[in-house]
């Protein structure tokens, strides 16, 4: 097949350019019209930034989604103003050795008062959490992805795929009657507010999850070993079980065979400080995670408890 050389040249910008221009305009308009419940930092940027934290905190909060949704460092800092606090929680993250090492690496080595707050949930002590660990998954980002997430998320987000209903709600926002507002903060907290208040309970999902998923001794032992190690290095180590609801705790304890009392005793024997918060006191949007208001209130109470513990230590002369 031989193409005949054609002497006809471009005369004017024709349908090619018109189509491309029209496409560019429509893409811009549709992208700008998209309905969005998210605010604050772009999620990819949020996670990439969090993953790269090193030596920039006096206090690091660690754990799974309950921790990064349930605790606001900024609110805590109002009660603990001398501390730079960062929320280093990741989705579905178990206490693997890699994660525990990374937690300590976020602490500023020159901090006069280094502290770690471990948010303990039965899920975080299972092998399944160690396997599907979002923290480790973020390690698999290649250089190109890291660059795009750090410098180009705004552009990437503009071109994110959507559903037709997102476009519809963008044009008629009043038509949307269910909302899942998420705000990503630079300190590592994600604040969530929903309309209606509890759009979908996680109780059935956790019931199914813990049908055959158990807390494993080696994961508990790892947490204890690191607690001892950190204590020996002069780092104060706290632990807390983020309060959910009574029924959720029952499902978790019975299903996973997690013995909170035994864990608490062992943790304190290794030098940690257990902060006890009974379930059902704070607002949740799914019976598992705290909503925005619940997280603010819990963060305030948590900081107050830590402050109280500091004062008690100072009075008794106990080692920090």
């Amino acid at each position, binding site marked *: 097949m031989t193409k005949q050389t054609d002497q006809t040249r471009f005369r004017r910008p024709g349908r090619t350019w018109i189509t491309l221009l029209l*496409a560019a305009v429509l893409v811009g308009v549709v992208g700008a019209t998209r309905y969005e419940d998210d605010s604050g930092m772009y999620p990819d940027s949020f996670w990439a930034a969090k993953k790269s934290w090193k030596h920039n905190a006096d206090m690091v909060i660690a754990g799974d989604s309950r921790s990064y949704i349930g605790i606001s460092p900024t609110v805590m800092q109002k009660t603990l103003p001398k501390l730079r606090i960062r929320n280093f929680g990741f989705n579905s993250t178990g206490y693997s050795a890699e994660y525990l090492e990374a937690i300590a690496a976020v602490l500023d080595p020159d901090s006069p008062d280094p502290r770690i707050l471990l948010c303990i949930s039965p899920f975080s002590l299972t092998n399944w959490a160690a396997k599907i660990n979002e923290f480790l998954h973020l390690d698999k980002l290649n250089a190109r992805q890291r660059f795009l997430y750090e410098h180009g998320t705004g552009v990437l987000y503009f071109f994110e795929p959507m559903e037709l209903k997102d476009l519809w709600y963008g044009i008629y926002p009043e038509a949307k009657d269910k909302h899942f507002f998420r705000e990503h903060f630079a300190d590592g907290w994600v604040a969530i507010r929903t309309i209606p208040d509890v759009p979908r309970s996680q109780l059935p999902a956790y019931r199914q999850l813990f049908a055959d998923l158990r807390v494993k001794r080696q994961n508990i032992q790892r947490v204890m070993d690191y607690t001892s190690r950190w204590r020996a290095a002069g780092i104060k180590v706290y632990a807390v079980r983020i309060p959910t609801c009574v029924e959720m705790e029952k499902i978790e304890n019975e299903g996973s065979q997690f013995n909170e009392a035994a864990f608490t005793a062992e943790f304190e024997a290794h030098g940690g400080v257990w902060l006890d918060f009974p379930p059902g006191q704070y607002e949740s949007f799914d019976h598992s995670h705290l909503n925005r208001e619940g997280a603010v209130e819990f963060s305030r109470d948590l900081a107050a408890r830590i402050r109280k513990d500091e004062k008690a230590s100072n009075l008794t002369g106990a080692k920090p």
Partner: protein
Amino acid sequence: MLFNSPEFLIFAAVFFFLWPLLKRANNTRWLYLTVASFFFYGWWDWRFLFLIVGSGLIDYGAGLIMIRWPQRRKVFLVLSILGNVGSLAVFKYSGFVADNLQPLAEMLGYAGTLREQLPRMTLVTPVGISFYTFQSMSYTIDVYRGRLEPTRNILHFFAYLSLFPQLVAGPIVRAADLLPQLREQQTVTEQESYDALKMIIRGFFKKLVVADVVAPIVNEAFGARNIQESCVFWWAVIILFALQIYCDFSGYSDIAIGLGKWMGYDFPTNFRHPYISTSMQEFWTRWHISLSTWFRDYVYIPLGGSRCASWRAHLNMWITMVVSGLWHGAAWPFVAWGALHAAYLSVERATSWPDRLKRIPYVGRHLALVICWILMLVAWVFFRSGTVAQEGISQFGRAMAVLGQMVSFHKLNPEPAGEILEGSVGAVLALVVLRHLYFHFGLDKRQRFRIPSRIWTILEPIGYALVVVACVYFRGSGDAFIYFQF
């Protein structure tokens, strides 16, 4: 570099911005095409550029030597073929051969794993190796046959061999078609430019909005630990896979052909609505045309084609189809896929059943279409299973398990099929089915279904602009083009 990536958009923008300036002089044009194409290919892994360069140097040299020493041209043809097939053997098939020799090695007392003895690099299949080696071989074979004058300019040759739009997944362009086009500066008319743009947009739509939407469903079904026990589910999944592979591959071809058109080069059509075929022979004149004609011209016909005894013609056809299956992948299910198609063609040749069926008034042609669809879908089960790697179950085992479910008519259980076909997947399936029926019933040729040209001139750019919006915002979550792995 994937066509559906931000890097490619930037690359293409830069390339076409500089193209009008750099295409004027021959050597500049060829150098620009070669450098750009190497950059495009090397973006994936620069280390494998040596393969294209090596393969190209062998064939470029062989072409010139065959003219210089015509009495020895067979030797250099063999060397060229060995070089190309050798690189395929090492980089694509060495793992497969090692795995299949393992039982024999163990019988002879070998304790280790043969695959682990292979250099690591040989276990990575370079992107596009099956395409550019075939394209390169077609050059030397055509020179050998006297159908092509070899080029004396190495840049001209590499511009042909490495031309980026069709480098990694075709269409396989013959040297006799492309070298003359590359020899002259081509000018593109506005109409050609617009046709190219439409082709590119259609290609992206097929890939991003159809294939990528359907891909996760198919991947999940084939990757699941336990086979879903539902006849209807598996027929739905394999129909979706048929859709996926057609739209993925023909989408890529459309983009490649469109990009070539923008440069001023005509690439051959690679797909002609294969799913409206009413015989398997017709299917192979509509599906991956550049590959099937390559095999016809360089394997089937040299073996004797059909100009020999009937049993020999069948044998030639079987060899060609099985090799074609193996070309697609280093796994037995691909061989089975090729063999199955060979069986279909043999039966067709022996019985002429499609022609007989089509003589039945009103329904014959439609029945033939349905039967062809069923035959194709059964074959696709093996093809798709060839890409499954799962512990505890062989690829063949997976294929047979799926086929078993497809014929378990007592286990209709339509609910799982309903779940996967809801939402955008169902919409996409309906769209593609309607489009195929449009061509099957010849509605594209009927005047009453044509929009007046004045209205069409206004509507068409708007329509294509909306398709671009769909490609950007309603794309699926699939990733690389399927044929990249070949």
